[in-house]
């Protein structure tokens, strides 16, 4: 099993943000998580990526229990993520942002930096190459040396993708990548996500844009009040009475 969470629970004070969720992410697929606002989707991501400690339950990744591992260790194992509110190093250039993404795959330390050892030079080169590679992948080579702060929203989303990809992940968690992006551009992001999976990655995606989810997701899990209320293919979920009740609503979606 690729990523598996077992009876995962997160409590904030009296609130059960994630409640006893058991769920597996299928390798090489787009696994979507949907659910009403406050259902616990972002919290679920925070638990998997290690920013929050679960109250109870276990998380296993490639057969290894990672429940107690700190966030940076999980990233090394191959779990990358983006944030709901785009979260980047705003005052650095795109290139500098992405180079840092590959840092976890390098070894050189303070002394290597000061003495400029062979290892350091080799790794620096590797980081740059990796950065160019992922920028090329997300289609941002043209803006490599611009400050992130000066980019459009959609470009920032792409930088966030690039940053995640630069860590050489196997699993990418995307939290509402298409929020605040217009339909035209949303299509571009969809294509990018599909391309990522085609390249062998596994994606876990939170999104409210149903057209996008229904189009690209292989499997969907639905959360409501922190609990899993449904799971299945897009068709199954779309026709699930509980999901319609809690989330989708009556009419067709835009």
């Amino acid at each position, binding site marked *: 099993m690729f990523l598996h969470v077992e009876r995962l629970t997160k409590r*904030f*004070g009296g609130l059960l943000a994630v409640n006893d969720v058991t769920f597996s992410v299928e390798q090489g697929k787009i696994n979507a998580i949907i659910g*009403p*606002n406050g259902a616990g989707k972002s919290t679920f991501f925070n638990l998997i990526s290690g920013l929050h400690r679960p109250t109870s339950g276990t998380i296993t990744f490639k057969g290894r229990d990672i429940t107690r591992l700190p966030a940076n260790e999980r990233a090394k194992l191959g779990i990358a993520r983006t944030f709901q509110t785009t979260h980047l190093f705003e005052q650095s250039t795109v290139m500098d942002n992405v180079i840092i993404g590959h840092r976890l795959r390098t070894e050189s330390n303070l002394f290597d930096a000061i003495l400029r050892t062979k290892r350091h030079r080799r790794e620096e080169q590797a980081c740059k190459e990796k950065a160019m590679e992922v920028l090329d992948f997300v289609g941002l080579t043209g803006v490599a040396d611009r400050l992130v702060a000066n980019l*459009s929203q959609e470009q920032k989303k792409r930088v966030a993708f690039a940053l995640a990809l630069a860590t050489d992940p196997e699993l990418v968690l995307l939290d509402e990548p298409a929020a605040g992006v217009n339909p035209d*551009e949303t299509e571009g992001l969809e294509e990018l996500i599909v391309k990522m999976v085609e390249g062998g990655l596994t994606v876990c995606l939170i999104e409210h844009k149903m057209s996008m989810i229904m189009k690209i997701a292989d499997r969907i899990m639905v959360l409501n009040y922190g609990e899993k209320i449904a799971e299945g293919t897009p068709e199954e979920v779309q026709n699930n009475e509980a999901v319609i009740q*809690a989330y989708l609503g009556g009419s067709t979606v*835009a």
Partner: protein
Amino acid sequence: MLEVTNVSVRYGSFTAIRDVTFSVRSGEIAVLLGANGAGKSTLFRTISGLHKPAQGEIRLDGERIDSLPPDRIVQRGVVQCAEGRKLFARMSVYENLLMGAYVHRKDKEGIRRSIEHVYELFPILHEKRNETAGSLSGGQQQMLAIGRALMSRPAVLLLDEPSIGLAPLIVEQMFATIKQINEEGTTILLAEQNAHAALSIAHQGYVFENGTIVASGTAEELLANDDVRKAYIGT
């Protein structure tokens, strides 16, 4: 009712809004469509007085408001529910709503009624009334932001992308709520990317690109326009 005439806004040397003119008629819903970075939020912030325009005039019922400080503009009845919500994170939901009525702080009875009204519109806020605003989820915060704006009983309500990050069911409810608020007599200026939903409740629409208005018309006209459909509705 709200008239924006030849307004330009700059950030340093960068002109975010160039010579924009449009108006919102009393009792109507006007929608501003536009991609990210088109300048919608900038325009809203300018109307609210958080930015001073480099040129041009903004009038409410014929009186200029573009040189007033933000709090005076709120007193005049132009209230914004901003992008990023700007809630009081460590105050409870109830206190946030209360602060929304700051300009009516003498009217205790009015405040009570307004709060009830907001709770009716968004029952979840009633449920969470004693939680701090910061602990709400994204969507709940958005509702609270709108609720707080309503507390000051605005004549003109500016809504900056209220549907951002909301679940479909909630988006639908949200637009229904906006429509309801409008029908109760509030003039609304709405910035949206979700053009379909926005135009379906709006009377008038303006399309914003790179800081200028590139198209305008009634909601029906814009919905019927192929280019608008292609760029903002995506079907």
